């Protein structure tokens, strides 16, 4: 287990260092997120619909798109110079490769969300101060679900035609359960409802994470090995 985590960390660190040195992908994703948020502002009639009613959907549709964008590039960079073959030839176990990629994706999406959330608060004047911690908890739960399936699928789609289009088509249905849960919990949090009203959805989010992280850990090797 310790070995597995150490190996996963090597993979994740490699990706994060790469990401941090170039920064282009990360910056693009952050700018994209800011743009989607502004698009939402113009996609509604502010005199007819109160912001607070739309806020959970705005936040989560933005995060879903941002996550998709981030996941699209997860294995793309391994295609250049046969980097994936190198990774596969190394003594890394497949599970640790998946986890490493997953952790790097999680960090990438987390950075984008960390910029997106304050922008969302700023643009739409949503009072999150009192529920910030539980809100971050929900974002973490849902993002783990997004990344668990997304990492698995992004390893597959790189070797298909129309990879950039294929990932959203395959992935979006899988993002629905975490999205439903996250939107419902966020709406209740923003309306200052007690957390006990969200227990059902929180259980759903947690169950989704556990099931899909385990399933993807098992299935990942079939996407990379002959």
């Amino acid at each position: 287990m310790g070995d597995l985590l150490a190996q996963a960390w090597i993979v994740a660190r490699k990706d994060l260092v790469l990401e941090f040195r170039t920064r282009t992908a990360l910056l693009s994703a952050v700018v994209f997120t800011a743009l989607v948020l502004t698009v939402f502002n113009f996609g509604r009639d502010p005199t007819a619909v109160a912001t607070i009613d739309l806020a959970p959907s705005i936040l989560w549709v933005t995060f879903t798109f941002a996550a998709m964008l981030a996941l699209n590039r997860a294995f793309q960079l391994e295609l250049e110079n046969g980097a994936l073959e190198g990774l596969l030839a190394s003594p890394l176990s497949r599970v640790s490769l998946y986890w490493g990629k997953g952790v790097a994706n999680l960090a990438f999406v987390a950075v984008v969300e960390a910029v997106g959330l304050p922008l969302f608060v700023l643009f739409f004047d949503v009072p999150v101060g009192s529920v910030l911690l539980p809100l971050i908890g929900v974002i973490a739960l849902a993002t783990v679900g997004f990344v668990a399936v997304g990492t698995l699928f992004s390893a597959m789609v790189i070797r298909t035609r129309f990879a950039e289009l294929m990932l959203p088509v395959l992935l979006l249905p899988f993002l629905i359960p975490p999205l439903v849960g996250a939107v419902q919990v966020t709406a209740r949090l923003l309306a200052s409802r007690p957390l006990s009203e969200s227990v059902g959805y929180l259980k759903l989010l947690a169950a989704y994470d556990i099931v899909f992280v385990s399933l993807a850990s098992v299935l990942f090797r079939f996407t990379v090995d002959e």
Partner: protein
Amino acid sequence: MSLAQRGRRITLVGLVLLAGVYVRALAYTPMERFQGPAQKIFYLHVPAAWSAMLAMGLVGLSSVLYLLLRDARFDRFAAASAEVGTTFSLVMLTTGPIWAKPIWGTWWTWDARLTLTLFLFFLFLGYLLLRSAVAEPGLRARYSAVLGICGLVLLPFIHLSVYLFRTLHPQPIVLKPSSPSLPGDMLITLLLSFAVFTVLYVGFVTQRYALSLEREAQGSGDVGRA
């Protein structure tokens, strides 16, 4: 008798039986007291849903078997089952609104089972798109098996996540803890149509499977391609 011929015969038997079930449904099954003739579509809508679910279940099962045994027959079968399932879900998604409009007063609603079947359809589409986007047969078989398994695991989550909303659909009437709540005559007609749709499923899949075999024999070596 070749496989294709056998498939055609089974389908023919299924179609004759379908006509028979419809004679029974229209002429010899009592009229539903509140819905009148509109309810007759029930005997098409529900068994189509059954066949679509059966198709997805078998796609998932043969995907697991493929990854374990690496036998091309399972891949060919999964491809055939997915295509037939797509057709049945299309039947279900067209008959549903036709029934819903006079009874619920709306063509569409985001009720739990409607959403579930819509996503079943999206999963089938994604599965077929993925198959068509991978050129190499071995890779295609592995990728689609991974997607098939994930899809099967996803469905309960989608059901659960939308079930937490209120649902408009009739509650289960056949498979439930207490005895079926459908009057005897209607229940028999429904069960007969389940049987007929299963025969049709077998007929269609057999033909589709035979088609794959023919294509492979023609030298393209493309497992599961039609």
